[in-house]
């Protein structure tokens, strides 16, 4: 959802199309089951354990009744329709699902939503808007830090968390002097971003985009 959309003349966006599809699925399921509920959880059998959790996502508070098995990733995508956060491997290996929870980047696929009562969650939708991009979003566009774009929301959320870790002095595997404050270098950046896989291989441009923002350059 960037400036690339400006040249698009389709009547609805891909997200609206997906949402429409999801809604009709729910309606269809509800009709078959003969129930009147209209949330995705209505498809859950009655005997499956549920739990309630309140999350503050991108500044908005939501209270959700969820199957206890619901990962934070699925809560964001399937229940709050925040589909910017991507499901890649669903096993914590690819980083596409990276979001920022209480100020820290984590894999949203490897944590349950019910484990985060009251948490502040920031997703790619909360970092910037098409009209007012986050500096890292702008830098990824400028440096062509993606090809297919699927890993990009995770890369950008991860980079936000990573730069904060660096600012807080968290060392990394490649930090030479463990007791000194670590400084950003290409090696540091690559090591610290190793939890985000880009199958298109846009790594060199991703490094340039993050480096520009870290250096405080105009994005």
């Amino acid at each position, binding site marked *: 959802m960037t400036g690339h959309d400006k040249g698009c003349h389709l009547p609805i966006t891909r997200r609206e199309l997906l949402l429409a599809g999801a809604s009709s699925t729910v309606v269809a399921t509800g009709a078959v089951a003969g129930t009147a509920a209209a949330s995705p959880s209505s498809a859950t059998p009655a005997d499956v*354990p549920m739990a309630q959790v309140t999350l503050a996502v991108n500044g908005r508070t939501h209270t959700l009744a969820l199957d*206890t098995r619901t990962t934070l990733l699925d809560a964001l995508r399937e229940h709050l329709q925040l589909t910017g956060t991507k499901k890649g491997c669903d096993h*914590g290996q690819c980083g596409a699902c990276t979001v920022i929870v209480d100020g*820290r980047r984590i894999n949203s696929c490897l944590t349950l939503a019910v484990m985060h009562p009251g948490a502040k969650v920031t997703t790619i939708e909360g970092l910037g808007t098409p009209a007012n991009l986050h500096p890292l979003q702008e830098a990824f566009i400028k440096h062509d830090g993606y090809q297919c774009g699927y890993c990009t929301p995770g890369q950008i959320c991860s980079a936000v*968390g*990573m730069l904060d870790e660096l600012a807080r002095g968290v060392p*990394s595997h490649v930090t030479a002097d463990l007791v000194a404050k670590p400084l950003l270098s290409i090696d540091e950046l690559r090591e610290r971003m190793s*939890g985000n896989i880009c199958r298109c291989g846009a790594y060199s441009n991703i490094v340039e985009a993050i480096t520009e923002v870290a250096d405080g350059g105009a994005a």
Partner: protein
Amino acid sequence: MKPFTYERASTPAQAAAAVARQAGAKFIAGGTNLLDLMKLQIETPSHLVDVNGLGLDKIEPTADGGLRIGALVRNTDLAADERVRRDYAVLSRAVLAGASGQLRNKATTAGNLLQRTRCSYFYDTNQPCNKRKPGSGCSAIGGYSRQLAVIGTSPACIATYPGDMAVAMRVLDATIETVRPDGHARTIPIADFHKLPDGTPQVENALEPGELITGVALPAPVGGTHVYRKVRDRASYAFALVSVAAIVQKDGSGRVALGGVAPKPWRSADAEAELPGGAKAVTGRLLAGAQPTAENAFKLTLAERTLAAVLSQARA
């Protein structure tokens, strides 16, 4: 994932009692390993006791000059703690050598100790595995074994303990602190914490049902040069083929433990006595009696050479 009920515990003893009370119950802390395994239905708990609210998230000095690391201290915070970086650098280095930034932000100290093997047959529910399904057989013996153990194995299992942090804790002589379901606390030296497979590879540690790790105590700092060197198939974010944790003193004495070669962090006093004689003497003793497969015999040479690199780095 199989359906499960969920509760948040408010005290360590209450958490331990809650898990002991219900068959099929498990603790969940960071969840980075458990949820991965639950999605694959390798772990199928019917009830989860969330221990994240127990307040075991501090690193504090102990009366004898050491440090006590709370069970819920996240890997990032452990590695970044100033005292750990200064006095227990091998531990910082080991933690930073594992996983990714995102995982280290979530993964806990206790959970890291309890992480399960990454043997590909343990992960493949279509294959026999004595650890996953006791008595079903071991697919790794005679199968793909490049990543697996060369020593401490049994005819039932050749899986490795996969972690880095525990290897450093082994050279630091850490002690695991626990609370049992009856509310009584006890301590377990890390040397005795992880179990060899023998005939029961599903038993991986000394914890009793419902017993909860509350912290890890490190003795007072021992000085020396601390090195953790990990050899793996990628430069980052991969499990060890071989890793070496070492503390080397000026007089040439020291401590050495190996990761990636056995079902537990691998260390022996006999082998350490050989340190002045160099890497070959140490690994010759430490890995005596190894029974590698044709695919992982390279680990014996790799361990020796990695230790040689570590010793030359420590003495530089």
